[in-house]
């Protein structure tokens, strides 16, 4: 599904700051991978570089989604190709109704893929059903995108977008942070409902507890722009219990 090979990225404005320093990762269809790593190790940068945010230059390496070069594409083309990023810090868009935003997004992707637009009626039905599962009420659907949403509401809203857009490759950047126990369960249920053999997930998190709900196939430790250790779910437990010191020392 997603093949990242020896990815190097630096800040566009400051070539002295290299953030990703040879990152390699292979995610097969249907797999769930978790990435953990100290603050500032480059986890969000990886998600941004994959989804095409301005401000970073890729100096070496590649990232392919189902055999197609992601790095050559505009952000919206990557989205239409099936990539989705649940933002660590979802962005507020004043004045734009959440529903309008979702519908514009869904139809933009459909159009890009040469599919018919969803009719207003079908769209409404789908949104309402999916919002209900995530306990997002009608009021939140009407309010402007993320404006005045609590931290947890913003994260649930990201998952609603994901559910509506039905991407193939979902990247979740700390979707669990800021969630209370119940909301965490809702979000995890939302993700698990989407798990299928042709959809993959890359879950960035600091905490084991999310991974109790979303069972990963692999766990990777990202430090200083590289994956320094990979393993199964037990690796997350190790981090939870001992922190990163041993792992970092082991890698050095």
């Amino acid at each position: 599904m997603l093949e990242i090979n020896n990815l190097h990225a630096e800040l566009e404005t400051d070539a002295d700051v290299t953030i990703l320093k040879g990152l390699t990762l292979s995610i097969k269809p249907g797999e769930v991978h978790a990435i953990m790593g100290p603050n500032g190790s480059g986890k969000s940068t990886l998600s941004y570089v994959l989804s095409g945010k301005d401000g970073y230059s890729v100096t070496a390496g590649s990232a392919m989604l189902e055999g197609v070069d992601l790095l050559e594409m505009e952000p919206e083309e990557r989205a239409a190709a099936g990539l989705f990023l649940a933002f660590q810090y979802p962005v507020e868009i004043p004045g734009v109704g959440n529903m309008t935003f979702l519908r514009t997004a869904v139809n933009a992707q459909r159009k890009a893929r040469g599919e018919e637009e969803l009719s207003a009626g079908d769209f409404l039905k789908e949104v309402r059903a999916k919002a209900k599962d995530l306990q997002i009420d009608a009021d939140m659907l009407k309010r402007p995108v993320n404006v005045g949403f609590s931290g947890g509401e913003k994260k649930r809203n990201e998952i609603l977008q994901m559910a509506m857009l039905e991407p193939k490759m979902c990247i979740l950047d700390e979707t669990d942070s800021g969630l209370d126990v119940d909301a965490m369960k809702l979000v995890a249920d939302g993700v698990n409902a989407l798990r299928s053999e042709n959809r993959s997930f890359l879950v960035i998190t600091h905490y084991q507890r999310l991974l109790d709900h979303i069972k990963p196939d692999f766990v990777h430790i990202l430090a200083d722009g590289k994956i320094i250790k990979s393993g199964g779910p037990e690796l997350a437990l190790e981090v939870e219990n001992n922190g990163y010191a041993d792992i970092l020392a082991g890698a050095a």
Partner: protein
Amino acid sequence: MTALDKIEVKEGVDQDTVDAVTALSGNYKYGWETEIEMDYAPKGVNPDIVRLISSKNEEPEWMTEWRLQAFTRWEKMNEPTWAMVSYPPIDFQDIYYYARPKSMAVKPKSLDDVDPKLLATYAKLGIPLKEQAILAGVEGAEDMPAEGRKVAVDAVFDSVSVGTTFQAELKKAGVIFCSISEAIRDHPELVKKYLGSVVPQSDNYYATLNSAVFSDGSFVYIPPGVRCPMELSTYFRINAENTGQFERTLIIADKGSYVSYLEGCTAPKRDVAQLHAAVVEIIIEEDAEVKYSTVQNWYPGDENGKGGIYNFVTKRADCRGDRAKVMWTQVETGSAVTWKYPSCILRGDDSQGEFYSIAIANNMQQADTGTKMVHLGKNTKSRIVSKGISAGKAQNTYRGLVSMHPKAKNSRNYTQCDSLLIGDQCGAHTVPYIEVKNNSSRVEHEATTSKVDDDQLFYCRSRGMDEEEAVALVVNGFCKEVLQALPMEFAMEAQALVAISLEGSVG
């Protein structure tokens, strides 16, 4: 639910409009022209031309005199230069002041007799000249108030009114809705009483010129206590080349009446700039209310600033009676130069004026627009919400006056003035004038200037929208408060227009 939320629910509409419109090539959708035989008055303006226009309209002597008086005044005046707009000098003698389709030489008895070419023009513009409820088949239309479904139209083509719909039905309610030339002939007592009473002949250079040479426009009278049974609208189309359009609109809302009035306008793409100098006067008596909404979409000129309409407009509402209310809503997306300040004179005690404006300037467009709120009566209230969007190399100025006179005790004004910049070659300017001459009134002014936020655009794009779609969405959000003030059909048109006007502003 607010008006805009309704749109969100019955979304099919706005998105379809946007798509239909974007599918058309070029970004100005109304740039085509109608090939039709025209009669012109000779170029230029002088007392003979003024008399000619007056006689073409079969006006009584007093009207001709009134025009000539205005012309004498105009000759002694100078073009104003204080606005933040620059354009090559206008040669006022190189313009046609009167252009009428030949087929209109004999006024058609009814719309059925109107030249099919003219009817086709309005059909192509999407203006319903058939007396039918519009928006049939739109999901959610059943939620709309009944009066929202019918819109009476006065269609003005170059210098003349082609026809006015629903006149019979309106007449039953006592409402007079006709072209101003008809009103001068058929309702001279009303015209004499009110014409020039809000915008005096000598008000400003363009208004004075308009007083001398206005050729047509709309007239509305709502009798006491009547709620106008449908929305009224005028659609202005400039078609002829080198021709100025000088229309005059007079709206009178008698005691306790209500009317919502819409105005739309377009013109063909031409290399040479064209002049449009209109005057709108509104009189609002005790307890009456008028909503006046404009979607101004004159041809803006090309991306190098060639051609386009020079739009010099004087619009003013006089809340003459106590508790009179007026609300101006304008969406200004067109014109090469816009010079326009729809104003409110709050003369009656407890009267209210509101001004909601979206002004978009892209490429080389220049907009200098705003409002005047003149508080004369006690406990008067005014509210100004202005959203200026600048892109390309455009300059966008908000110019607003709030004046609290000594007798306007306990009056309030709230002004919110937001500017949004797209790119770094455009400019936004805010020029507020505030005069408070009593100590019980309060004026609040808030202004912000921001850039379209890259994070917002990236967020939209990461969800699959292309850059222009993303900008249009963010800008529509920025304008939401004003879009909400528009009647629903207009709000949808305006949303689509925002997207179109900003084409080419990114990337």
